[in-house]
């Protein structure tokens, strides 16, 4: 025969068991939903992973090859402006928005031209000057 105390104790066990089962189910559901949204190690920035900047790097090479590289080397920053402006205009005409800028030997920003709504920034160093492009 069960005594009053034993009935109470059994009820406590049953409630505790139900709580543990509920917690386990919540844990499983949460784990499942977390697994569905996980990325590579949770930390990879997929936006930057999508654009490594390889295309922008090639475009920067092309821009420098069009005479911009020689002007930057010579430190003729005022000569860079009209040339890069016309190049960026041509890019814009083909649906590519780019921003171009140069850091001189002293780290001062020069020739900040165009605008980019996103994309990877790439740089090429020429004789202590940094030429940047973002498309």
């Amino acid at each position, binding site marked *: 025969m069960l005594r009053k105390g034993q009935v109470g104790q059994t009820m406590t066990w049953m409630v505790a068991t139900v709580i543990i089962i509920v917690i386990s189910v919540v844990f499983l559901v949460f784990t*499942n939903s977390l697994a569905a949204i996980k990325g590579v190690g949770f930390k990879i920035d997929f936006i930057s992973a999508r654009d490594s900047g390889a295309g922008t790097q090639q475009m920067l090479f092309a821009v420098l090859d069009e005479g911009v590289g020689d002007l930057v080397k010579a430190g003729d920053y005022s000569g860079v402006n009209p040339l890069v402006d016309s190049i960026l205009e041509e890019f814009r005409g083909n649906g590519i928005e780019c921003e171009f800028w140069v850091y001189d030997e002293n780290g001062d920003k020069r020739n900040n031209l165009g605008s980019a709504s996103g994309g990877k920034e790439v740089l090429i160093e020429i004789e202590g000057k940094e030429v940047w492009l973002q498309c």
Partner: protein
Amino acid sequence: MNRKGDERVLSLYWFVIFIIIAAAVTGGTYLFFSHPIDVREVEVSMLADRVIDCFVERGRLNEELLGEISSENFEERCGLVFGDSFEGYKGDVQYYVEVSSLGNVVGAGDDRWKSICTEEAEPNVPTCARRRLMVLNEAGDFAVFDVLSSVRKVEQNA
């Protein structure tokens, strides 16, 4: 009072609780780690980069290669392998790439899904990346170079 019996029932109860918790932890770990990670967005991006590197060197378009390349020799000329050795695919082609520049359009791989692919990886839909860049042609003028890369692998990422 039957204390010995009480303790036995209590031990059995704790054992059952232990089994429930262990099953939940094991199940949760299995669920989490068995779920596939969809890395096709990164994969198509890498594929597009490889194609850009194949055709463009230091900002200049390799027009000779663009004239010579075809769907038959694309893999060989660009050092790519489109067949997937994953057990379910048995070497079937899971990729498609297409380049267009100076009026030439060359595609290689399986193009059946190129019109339905999305840039953000979604289950049951192939993923693709579109790149447009301006490069110099042989005459030294800027030319548009377009790349489309696509990865299917929907079964692996369902």
